[in-house]
């Protein structure tokens, strides 16, 4: 084999190596720099509602579950730690032999606002992603952002997104608002929690049995801690849904 032939071979190999390096570089560039998109979510241009539902449903479910286990707050500011979880005090007194002061009288509204605040980031991302999907398919898109509102209603939680989406290709479609409805009876659990809190504030104690008599589908437990704090756990029998909170009222310490 002559020198010229060897030199050609080396040259070819070098070119291939360079091409390979360039390809790898481009691949890495694609991998890290391309905007993230969720191809796992099926996009149907005739049904943006489905897209929003798939994009946000799980987030709303997880948020509701977390907030329910923490006494109605995403980040409890005044809580009792039980099982490594912070549980908000919804009624509290730092004194002994005194009934507590309710810390959250508008509980349902508070929970709604907590959910709204927690999901807002994801809402923005999902609607932005929805817009991208349309634009990539050649639509003219006009998106007017609006308010996100959560309503905790009997047997369901409805989240409404007052975004107005107008998409135009050959014809114009307008979607005035979007909504996601979860099957969840948090409403009833909060009603019961409010009643328990009333008893704690006025009489210093509540009897879980009376609620189970009136609400056969609900289980209510009271867990008395050593410092006088009570953890109330309201569970739905047929689902894993649970709402729990802490209260400290009319505490008698030992020897007092």
């Amino acid at each position, binding site marked *: 084999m002559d020198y010229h032939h060897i030199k050609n071979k080396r040259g070819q190999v070098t070119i291939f190596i360079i091409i390979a390096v360039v390809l790898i570089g481009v691949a890495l560039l694609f991998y890290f720099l391309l905007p993230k998109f969720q191809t796992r979510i099926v996009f149907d241009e005739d049904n943006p509602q489905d897209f929003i539902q798939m994009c946000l449903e799980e987030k709303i479910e997880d948020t509701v579950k977390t907030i329910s286990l923490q006494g109605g707050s995403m980040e409890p500011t005044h809580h009792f730690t039980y099982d490594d979880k912070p549980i908000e005090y919804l009624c509290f007194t730092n004194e002994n032999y005194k009934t507590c002061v309710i810390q959250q009288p508008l509980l*349902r509204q508070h929970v709604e606002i907590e959910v709204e605040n927690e999901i807002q980031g994801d809402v923005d991302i999902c609607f932005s992603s929805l817009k991208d999907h349309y634009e990539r398919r050649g639509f003219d898109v006009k998106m007017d952002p609006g308010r996100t509102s959560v309503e905790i209603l009997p047997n369901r939680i409805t989240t409404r997104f007052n975004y107005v989406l107008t998409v135009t290709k050959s014809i114009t479609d307008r979607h005035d608002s979007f909504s996601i409805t979860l099957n969840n009876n948090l409403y009833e659990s909060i009603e019961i929690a409010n009643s328990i809190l009333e008893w704690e504030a006025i009489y210093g104690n509540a009897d879980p049995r009376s609620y189970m008599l009136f609400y056969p589908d609900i289980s209510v437990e009271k867990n008395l801690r050593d410092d006088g704090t009570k953890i109330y756990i309201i569970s739905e029998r047929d689902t894993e849904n649970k709402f729990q909170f802490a209260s400290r009222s009319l505490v008698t310490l030992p020897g007092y």
Partner: protein
Amino acid sequence: MKKAINLNFKQSIILILGIFVIISSLNFIKADQAEFYCAEKTINNEWCQMVPIEEVDTSYSYSRTSCEFTEYCSIGTCISVESGSCQTSPKTLCNPEQGGYFNSSEINQIEDCKKGCCILSNGARIVRKIQCTALSRHLNLVYNFIPSINTEAECSAQVASSNLGACIIETNSRRTCYHKTGGECQSSQGEFHEGFLCSNPQLGTGCLMSNRTTCVSGKNEVYFMDSCGNIANVYDFSRRASTLYWSYFPGYGNVELSTGDNLGNIRNPRHGYCDYTKGSTCARYDVLKDGLQAKPALGNYVCRNLNCRKSPLTGNLERKHGESWCSKPLEYFENAKPGDVSYLLYCYNGEVKYELCDHYRNSLCYEERTGTGANAISSAGCILNKWQECFGQDEERFCLGSDKKCSVVPTNEYPTNANTFILTEDATSKGITLSAGTEVQCIPKYPPGLKFWEAEPIIPSAVLDNLKNLELNSELSSICDISSDVCKVQYYRKSSGWLPWGTSVRCEGNNCLCIGLKDEDRIYNNDRGKQENLNNDWVIYQNDICTLTADCGGYSNTNPNPNFLDISGIFHFLEFAASSGRGGWGKVMAREGWWARRAHGTVDFTCKPWQPILGGEDCSKCNGQLFPCTEYQCRSLGKACQFIQGDSDNPLCIYIDDEDVIPPIINEREESLIEDYVYKEIHSPTSRKLGVEIEYTQSEDGCLPAFEPFSFGIELDKLGYCKFDYERTEDFDEMEFTFGNEDRNTFALNYTQTFSLPGVKHVQEEYESEETDAYEYGSLEEIEEFESIMELIRPSLHLNGEYEVYVRCKSLNNAYNIEEFMFKFCMEDQDDITPPIIRGFDWQNESPLAFFGEGETRKINVKVYINKPSQCKWSLEDKTYESMENSLNCQGEDEIFNNHLAYFCDGELTGLENNQENDFYFRCNSSFGVMNSESKRLTLIGTTPLDITSISPNVTTVKSGTSPVTVPLEVRTYAGYQNGVATCQYSSSGNPGTYSTFSNTNSQQHSTNLYLEEGSYGYHIRCYDNAGNSKTGVVSFNVETDTSPPIVIRVYREANNLKIITNEEATCVYSNVINTGCMYNFEDGQTMTRTSSNKIHSTSWDYRKIFYIKCKDEFENQPYGAGSGGCSIIIKPFEFE
């Protein structure tokens, strides 16, 4: 010239001392008064608390007064109409922006918050008025509220039998039928047939009998449903095909309701007359909860047993639903030992629940049992233990009052400083009857618990108040000290000088009983200098009192025999402080020299907080009991017992031996294995056990089946925290995963871990391509999340199917295993011959669907969850997999499953029909070609369109005498899902985001109050139901206010009548009393006769009188003011003559 103040030396000293005293007293005063502030918010984010200034969040209000006297923390009621709540609340927390309205009155003084009888069509209960409207919403029922009824019995009696019937509505040439009351049907403009069921053939509705049953919200029974979805009569298998039973409601057409076995039909497969009072209610059949024999003959619902089976928790009795009882009888706590606590237990809906009354016996469980035999039932509750009020009581009526919180012990004529009294009648105490005339002292009947391991607790003020008259030799140092006592004894000896051996002395006086002697008895010195003829009865007696005070005295929990006293040596200078080291002791000391002819001694008994035995051998007795261990119970078992994980589901009482450096010994746990799985030990060549191999007994080679969750576990000889890894590691910290499917570091004695893995063939097929193919479809975040889930729940997939899991554990002393314990297993290397299992769908079975309009594509998306990678299809008919027409999109990669160990397929379901049940059948084919032989069915219910039947007020004028005017906006809906039950909203502009929800909604009737000024108004209404059907409407009306009183525009005489005409409809009265003139109340006036137009008013003409006339309109507008200003007109008929 200034005159110097000259003081002599004495005066100077007095002055200096005086200043010193003043300054000291100031400091004393200052130190004595703690400064607390009512903080609107504290630095710990607590609202309205009394705290020192350092804890106040000064960016909010605060003041140095009690919170009830501040404006911001004044307690009132926060009312929310939207949520239907009245809540006691401090003012600052009632936020109007969240819909809260603060009322300074107490909750029971507010009209909307008052309780009354709330009648719903399924029953009645006593609730607050504002809650009644909320109840009607969440039960989707029309309500009626009667405030005058406040007892449940009277309220329940209000529930009238409903006049239900078939309501036929004809729309668009369709004839639909619903079960409604007469009033509801009328509102829906339907044709009502009282007492008829829609399945009555005479009605020709097309609704037919069916085999479907269901539960009904608010009712206990199981009901039939007709083919149209209407609730029919109670499920009765024997009448399933009875035309009569399917034609009329009970009470009509000779149809009577059968109650079945009359015992609630618990688990009766053929009858659905459940009875909550007998312990049964309707529930969806579950073989695990109801048993095989309860499988309903028709439908899927059965009367579930709500009673609780015998168990240690129930005291080995069967307990009825609603029954409550105590863990120990109240009498037990009369002799409570440290660690004893009282639990309240109750049975509800088949479950036993318990509640600790109090950690330290400040509250105890009290139980009453009524009835006999099978009808016997217990009722229990926690009651307050008011032990504080017993100490120092010196009157029988306070000690043995009706609340029975105290008991008495006889003084046995022993000298005592405690308050005593004489019984006026017989009394029983601790099982002993004391006759009238006995001198006794008052003690708690149920001694309270103490935190005996901490500094001695402060004496409650309630106790101190009762002890003011006691002569105490020292200040009380603890609550136990209340039962300390002192006895002074006087001795007399005859001889002088030092006492030779054998010399006797005599006790004199009333207190000789302290040392067990009476007067004239002798005390002898023996050869060893110890005194004989003494006994310690008094001290034993004192110890009994001491232990009855609280957790005091010399008791040992595990050693019931007190051995604490040994009195000897009265007449030596040495103290004989005999003690068990466990609390109370008697101390006898001679205070005067031996050479005295008479000597005085004191016998002291000091009662101290109880202390447990040394060591911790008994600590573990607290764990694994019926109730979780508490710190109080744990500490009572030994000095070295420690309570850990207190604020968790698994509190433990442990003995930490600081010198224990041995790690936990790990062994495999048999109980963690499921059926058909076994362990086989693995040993090293030197016979040392290395671990176990897990084998599947149903396979020849012992390898485990693919995609079948299996579990294995470990048990330890001491508490440990365990981790595992798939590779060998150097030490505990290097291991990556927590053993036991938990992500927190709690300590336990055993753990179970669950895996689910593909077989070898699956892995080989999927992993032939580059690994990056597995991540092709996900975003970076999803991949990262997926990887973390993967690492938690599934080990790295091995191409050869061989797996080893290495485990280490760490003890409480941080000692961990050097050598790992190994679990080894293999996955099957063969074609998968089992069909896929469809685990479920992302739709709940029997979910409603919104009505599909004309031109609307009738399809929905669905997700099917399966246990292994497969291809799935569906059809509208139940047929074989190959015949099914529609395929789903299935993910095939092993990694793509959710953390419920399930794979999924998704796709679209088409061919949906309105107003009927849509059945879809699914079957799957595994990657090895094994298909389902049976279909999994998913039923989705098509609905009818929702409609609005009426909106009011519409095209009308609303008038009122006040401004703003209250305008009730009302809407009625029907059809859709659940016969028109919907949520409605309104908006003045109709723009998105401006709609507000009706105050009363989520039913077929919706209402809300608007407060409007005069003007013209229009509103957009929109309603939607649970299926997603929606309907809109508009309404317009005018609002007028009328704040002016009527004006008399004409006065005349007609025949013998005085007549006046007003400018509007009015009611007029008059008075003829000159003295009062117009100054009379409208109600006291004489009414003038009105014509039908209500504008012409008349009375008899009398020229001798003056008529002072007042007129008022429907809005109560009438003239006010002094003089003639209080009359509409003053008429003097004589002026007309």
